[in-house]
């Protein structure tokens, strides 16, 4: 379960409890906020680990390398046994991806075996033209939690971008 957050907040909370009076409603609100953070962490763990076996999980992430020749606007994920997923990007998210952050796209429940995945990323190229970047391929799901990273990388020679999928 998610103990680090709980421990950390408890750790930091010790000192403010000494500082404020018990009647202070702000202290009660701060305490409630701390509970929300802790519970949010526990709920996230329940959702990921206790509803179905973690071994059936496949997590899909997206990374953008440089992003000079392609700026994503939206993404569509589909495949056999995968409910289609559509996502629209905000400017902030694109900026975060350009800084090297990794977006957790989705968690899929999949049985062991081979699975076909199709990803269409719509975006703008360096000439501001709309274009689709398509990845289609088969990945193998084993008996462990599989983490897949979809990378959009610049191909400087072709002045273009390519999408590749690899296990993390």
């Amino acid at each position, binding site marked *: *379960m998610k103990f680090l957050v709980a421990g950390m907040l408890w750790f930091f909370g010790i000192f403010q409890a000494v500082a404020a009076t018990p009647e202070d409603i702000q202290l009660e609100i701060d305490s409630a906020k701390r509970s929300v953070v802790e519970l949010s962490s526990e709920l*996230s763990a329940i959702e990921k680990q206790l509803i179905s076996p973690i071994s059936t999980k496949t997590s899909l992430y997206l990374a953008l390398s440089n992003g000079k020749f392609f700026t994503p606007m939206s993404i569509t994920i589909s495949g056999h046994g995968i409910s289609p997923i559509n996502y629209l990007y905000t400017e902030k998210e694109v900026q975060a991806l350009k800084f090297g*952050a990794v977006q957790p796209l989705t968690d899929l429940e999949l049985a062991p075996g081979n699975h076909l995945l199709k990803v269409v990323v719509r975006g703008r190229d360096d000439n501001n033209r709309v274009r689709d970047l398509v990845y289609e391929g088969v990945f193998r799901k084993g*008996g462990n939690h599989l983490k897949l990273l979809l990378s959009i990388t610049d191909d400087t020679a072709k002045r273009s971008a390519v999408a590749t999928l690899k296990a993390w």
Partner: protein
Amino acid sequence: MQKSGLLALAVAATAWVSSTACAQPTAPDNGLISTLSASVPAPKTPLEILNHELGKRVYFFHYLTSTPLDAITDDDAEPTLSDMDIMYTLPAGLSELGMDSYANVLLNDPALGLSPGMGNTWFMLARNASDRNDWLQAGRLIGRAMANDALLNPTDTSEAAFIAATSHANRDQITQAEQAFDLIDEESEWYRFAGYNLMLAKMRLGISSKDLQQWVGEFLVDEAEDQQQSALNDRFRLTAGKYELRNKHYDEAISYLRLVSKDGPYTSDALLQYGWALSKRWQYDQALQPWRVLQEHFPLLNIHTLESLMATSYVAELMNGGVPSLPVYEYTEKRMTEALEQLDQLNNIDTLSQWVSHWEERQSSASDNILSPDLQGVASSSTSRHLEGLLSTSAFLQEQQRLIDIRSMLGWVQQQQQHLSIARADKLANQAIYLEVVESDHLAQVADNTKQLQQQIIQINHQIQAHRNQPLGFAIQPERNRLDQLEAITNESKDGTSMEQDVQTQASILQGITLWQLTKAQPQRAWALQKQQLVLEQQYQDLNTQLTNINELLAQAGAFHARSEEHLATIDAVSNKLGALEQTLTALHTKQQQQVVTVAQSHIGMLKDRLKDYLATTRLSIARLYDGELRRNTNSGGLGEYD
């Protein structure tokens, strides 16, 4: 990893508390963060290192997209929180969640507090303090943000300088305020805000009319592009006008006040002051105009409208002398009595509670930040209009923010309870499906079918071998029968007629042709059979792989569902925690609603006190006028007695 993390944190916390119990100053390497970082084991195996890297990048995705709660609680990111790269950003994230006290605990730690590159965090905390009108604290924090080694984001420099300038200006430290002011980009919106705050400081120190005019002129926008620019123009003019009015520079006051727009947030105050300024210049008729506008177009409970009523009767007396101004005074008394009745009606806990409920729900649902939603303003209603003067006070805004925070958290808890309930049902449904699959003979049937398929493949393989080993392999029975017939004809008596001999020759030729055709077709027929065998083999392999995968999945599911009781107990425990938090928040919500109502009542009380003063003054004036008239009539022998 996570369990050991908790243990380590708990131990570290206890150790840290014990070590600080003697109130010794903390050495940098003995601080909270250092202890914390040392307690959580660093990733060692390549997989742990990879996952740690992924977690950090996921954390930064949430952090940079302004979703700090997701950043802190994301399953991937959570194990990396003790990483120093993450720790640097935690105070800013906590501050964004409205958890400033936690952020301050972190920042007071030597490991972070003395670190360079923390400019954005200090800035965010300073901004929160300035939002709370705590300018002293804001000034202290922004000093840290603007230090050379803090590496503040350049886009925030102007706002940071505004906070610094305002903080100094509030303490009348003009020189320091002007130094900070000089750092603000003139094109930035903060330039004019800081100019206004500096003007207030200069006023406190007695700026001359000429200097004030010059200062205000610097910041007025000739053609305002939006309402905000126009409102700030008005604010400059209104404040400067009031300053000049107070200093008895009536012409200067009039020149500022007459230019305040007629449809802005400062109009009512400006109309009132404009009337006063004109009255001080003995322009009584003109002075009544703005007050009439005020009384006709603004709510009666507007503090400026109330004051204008009193001002009207005062000026009427100056214009008309004693008795002729009595109807004006009586009208004023009547309106003020009405206002007092309205205030009494408004000062009702139920009415005010309904008013609070009306706007709070809309506010809390309009933000993604569940711990500290942005204030959206109060919904329009007659109560809101009557309490207009209250809505922008810092006391109300603070209580409003607290109420919205609580309401938002309460909504979140209720939503999570529903989600958890669905998740629990899903888990039980998954378990039921698993048991159904295990208990049914469906998988056994599939296994039987697989075996049958395997048998078929073996059979075909035998057939191919048999055909290959026999002469005329792969020939079908009619072809064999025909060949036998032809051979029989060919082998019949050689002494027949010439016709029979011809038939025998033809049969022999046909036999040869048939044999040739069969020989030619043999590879194709062999391949067709082999292809069939290969297809079946592929199908068998696919089926077998699938069966293996399903068995593997069932084994995983079996192990998983074997711990169902434990999982359900965890879910129920979290559900109970949510229930307990809901109770706490409900109680807190009721308490805070009452607090907002109390603030509103306090404002209404202030209005009532002010109104009572005005009313008392008005009634005294009426009494004075009657008394004066009575005395005059008495002195004149009862002639001309006022009726």
